[in-house]
């Protein structure tokens, strides 16, 4: 068996060995920064949110007491803020400055359209065996929801977090009760993000049967032709009809990258699930 076959992802074996690029290197780095800082923020935020729970003090002591936890939380927050600002800058640079098509509307846009509403209902009809499976474009409705949930979440959590961090400054233009509200907003929205990412996002993107145990495309950037065709038939056909298949061809991911991605990905999923269990024990205690 040739080495190249060993290196193929579990799902969608490439019969003809063709791989197509789905995410650029920058997008993959952005996801890596996003999930590492998010794990860091969750791991340091949860002990604060559930400071009375049995594991909170142990976890805090584990990272060097509360001063350390707050320091890590703020450190991750700054890194994530910078990543967020870079992303927003890129989106506007590509969409407005370079006039790139498909950023704000069209089949490749993250902005939700009427098709997403139809796909949502169509998908659910398919769940119940009442209709055919919808054909998805570049970003399916749940992926757009993930994106906008994170986008909204970062604005809300970030703003409320900085409002607490620099409370006397924010107090100059916020009413007094807002200082109370920001903690409620920060912790509830953070909790929603944690519960959503560690359960819904994990299952929707990685653990569902079509991708199980992990969708490697966010790590390798490429996916096999079969997987591409199966998961996003509309985008695949559009690519062929627009004659862009050649320009989107990628190389098969090397074995080291696959193995590295697996270690990182499984670690992230494991930490996330562990934090989810802790959250649930604290919430329903």
């Amino acid at each position, binding site marked *: 068996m040739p080495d190249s076959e060993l290196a193929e992802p579990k799902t969608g074996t490439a019969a003809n060995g063709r791989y197509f690029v789905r995410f650029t290197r920058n997008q993959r780095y952005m996801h890596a920064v996003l999930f590492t800082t998010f794990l860091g923020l969750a791991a340091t935020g949860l002990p604060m949110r559930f400071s009375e729970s049995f594991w909170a003090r142990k976890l805090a002591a584990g990272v060097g007491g*509360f001063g350390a*936890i707050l320091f890590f939380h703020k450190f991750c927050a700054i890194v994530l803020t910078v990543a967020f600002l870079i992303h927003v800058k890129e989106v506007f640079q590509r969409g407005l400055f370079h006039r790139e098509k498909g950023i704000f509307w069209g089949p490749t846009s993250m902005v939700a359209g009427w098709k997403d509403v139809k796909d949502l209902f169509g998908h*659910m009809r398919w769940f119940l065996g009442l209709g055919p499976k919808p054909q998805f474009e570049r970003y399916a409705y749940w992926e757009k929801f993930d994106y906008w*949930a994170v986008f909204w979440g970062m604005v809300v959590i970030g703003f409320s977090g900085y409002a607490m961090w620099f409370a006397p400054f924010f107090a100059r233009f916020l009413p007094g009760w807002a200082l109370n509200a920001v903690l409620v907003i920060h912790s509830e929205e953070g909790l*929603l993000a944690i519960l*959503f990412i560690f359960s819904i996002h994990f299952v929707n993107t990685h653990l569902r049967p079509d991708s199980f145990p992990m969708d490697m495309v966010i790590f390798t950037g490429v996916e096999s032709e079969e997987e591409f065709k199966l998961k996003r038939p509309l985008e695949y056909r559009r690519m062929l009809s627009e004659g862009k298949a050649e320009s989107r061809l990628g190389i098969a991911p090397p074995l080291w990258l696959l193995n590295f991605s697996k270690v990182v990905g499984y670690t992230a999923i494991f930490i996330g699930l562990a934090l989810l269990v802790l959250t649930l024990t604290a919430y329903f205690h």
Partner: protein
Amino acid sequence: MNHAVWIRVRCDIRGAMLPASAVLALALAPGALRAQADCLACHGDASMTDASGHSIAVDGQKFSQSIHGSLQCTNCHADIKGYPHPDKIAPVECKTCHDDQASALAGSVHANSKEHPCTSCHGNAHEIFPKTDARSAVYPLNVPKTCGQCHSNDGMAAKHGLPSVYPNYIDSIHGFALSDEGLLVAANCQSCHGSHHILSHTNPLSPTYKTNIPKTCGNCHAKIEMEYDAGIHGEQIARGNLNAPVCTDCHTAHAILRPTEAAFRMQSTPICGSCHKEQLSTYRDTFHSQLGSLGGYVETARCWDCHGAHQVLPASDPNSPINKASLVQTCGKCHAGANESFVQYQPHADPRNRQLNPGLYFVRLFMNLLLIGVLTFFVIHTLLWLIRSRYAQIKNSPRRAANGGKDA
């Protein structure tokens, strides 16, 4: 039987021989004992015991240095009129001279002690020194150890059902000052409990009775007592409201910690909360508590950082640190740059109370509905999806297609 023979018999019983000269001197001595030397001729032998094995030896040198060194043995052992004396002699009555102390002791918790009430604390009856002498068992630095002989589980506390307070005390700020720093002014047992007339803390006359405690502690901590008396807790105690806290309710009686140290800051909030339950509950919702509960980060505001520790006053009182006029200063202790708007923050806001905190109530309601709504929708959505994709996967699997689906 002449004297010499009797002494020889006693000596034989003890299994120790006195020097022949001493035996001779005693044998020739007249019947009356006048000087310490006469008694010490026998009792100076360090190994001398009575028939039941208790030491009846006296260290003549130490005795002569002791506060009673100028007395004759028979001043205290008054029933010994001459030599030889009976085997059984009456217990010494210290009250013959120390009447005040004896009557004080008689009304105290130690009145029924089976041990000799004086020597249990003052030590060996023949080696009693003034309490200002470092050799005294009741010298300030020695008091805790002396009381600890009984009031610790190593002593008799467990046996007699007494609280084991010695270990608590010795690790406290008072115990540390006394045992490590050797501060004579550090509170020892008797600074608070008194010495001879020790009463139960349930006795209203006791210095450790609840309403007397501020005054007792105030003997040293005068300024704090003044502040306490001016505060609402002091005022309530003065009115006889026994629910109000006194010094020991927050600081404990024996295991008193330095209030700035982490352990005390960690343990103090629940103490206030044991009465102020609602305030504790709303405090728990705040960042102050969330930070503060985790340990290792003890600077976050505890109750008294804002309310004051001793002179606790209602917010309506202009002298209260939480009075509107003082808030900028009070919050500013930690939050540099605190301003009029900043101090509108409510450290005890209740997001569940729509009347008191309407803004917060609706923010929390919205956030909760968002959280529940999103999660409920997606949990159902994703579960259905899981089931449907697994079904599709099995139906379309090559293996099933190959063997006609017999073992799918």
